[in-house]
């Protein structure tokens, strides 16, 4: 009887260790998914093409005032499409804050659509006052935004410099790098002939 009790106790200890091990493994796979997520922002073959003139909008701001989007103003514009119900969007707000905006000639503009009251609450809660925030269904439709968070970089010349679905800091930064290097997206440049400065490119992305 004692042996049975001891054996049973040991079996439970073993099962407890195993279940913790399974949990830890599953968690590690989850973390790897986050880390190994495609480094470059993914573009969807939809909406206005990179290199073409950005559609021009003149939209009211959530905090009051108007904002011109897509004009050649000599400053780059990063349109960041988000929604109050998207956890990844919220996670990226600090990344947007840390971008070298202002003096480097980059304006970060938040864009969304939906009920104004809901967005105002979100705007206050997340302290988004430093960013221009526009609500416009037609803006999202013109750029054919189907997944969030999505970013579109419009160059100082009013042309679309890069765009894509962004889930991480690296992906947002890859848009800026893509603009500097003159490539539209990660896919475009994986597809390029390696002899066209492949080394430099891979250095920049990894």
């Amino acid at each position: 009887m004692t042996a049975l009790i001891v054996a049973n106790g040991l079996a439970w200890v073993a099962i407890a260790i195993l279940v913790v091990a399974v949990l830890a493994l599953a968690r590690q796979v989850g973390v790897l998914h986050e880390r190994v997520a495609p480094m470059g922002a993914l573009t969807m073959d939809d909406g206005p093409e990179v290199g073409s003139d950005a559609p021009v909008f003149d939209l009211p701001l959530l905090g009051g005032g108007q904002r011109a989007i897509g004009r050649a103003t000599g400053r780059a514009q990063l349109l960041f499409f988000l929604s109050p119900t998207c956890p990844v969007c919220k996670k990226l707000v600090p990344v947007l804050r840390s971008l070298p905006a202002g003096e480097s000639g980059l304006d970060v503009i938040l864009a969304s659509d939906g009920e104004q009251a809901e967005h105002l609450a979100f705007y206050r809660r997340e302290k988004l006052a430093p960013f221009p925030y526009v609500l416009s269904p037609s803006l999202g439709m013109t750029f054919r935004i189907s997944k969030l968070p999505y970013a579109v970089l419009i160059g100082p010349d009013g042309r679309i410099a890069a765009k894509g679905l962004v889930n991480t800091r690296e992906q947002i930064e890859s848009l800026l790098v893509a603009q500097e290097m003159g490539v539209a997206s990660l896919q475009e440049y994986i597809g390029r002939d390696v002899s066209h400065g492949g080394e430099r490119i891979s250095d920049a992305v990894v």
Partner: protein
Amino acid sequence: MGPVIDAVLGQGAGMAAWSVRLAIAAIFLEAAQHALQERETFAAAIGAYRILPGSWSGGASFAVPALQLGSSFALMVPQATRAGAGLALAVLLLFTVAIAINLQRGRRDIDCGCGGGAVQTISPALLLRNLVLCAGLVMSLASPPRIHFGAAATVGLAGFGVFLTGLYFATNQLLSNAQAFAAANRGFAA
């Protein structure tokens, strides 16, 4: 022989129900802790379900963890275990119905707000997971609230409870991983 087997099976089911109660109490405790710790995110998740009027999300983000805490503690008190199981079942069914309605609406990209150690959006798998938890609670309601077993059995049953809890969290993590995996594959295919 028949009555003996019946008695053993009956007592066995009662003992297993105790382990299930322990596991569900731990699961609800974690869910409440998670919701209170990130209350604003939880309120946003409740709002995203678009079941309650938008202005209720804030209140619900207090009420739900409070009910979860209450049912979690009641589950482990023999005098209150039935009430705890009933309350837990009510909360769980509310969320399950909310998930089913949103799946029906075709909104699969909303955060479930359900804690469990990993972020995941609502899915049919989540419905199934909740129904399994509901089945555990129904079993708990159907079994005697107070049963007596010795120290050795307690160790084994507590072990089983811890195992079920671990299994629940591992399942959540794997569901979340599966969603990340599917999203990554979609991304590359696009």
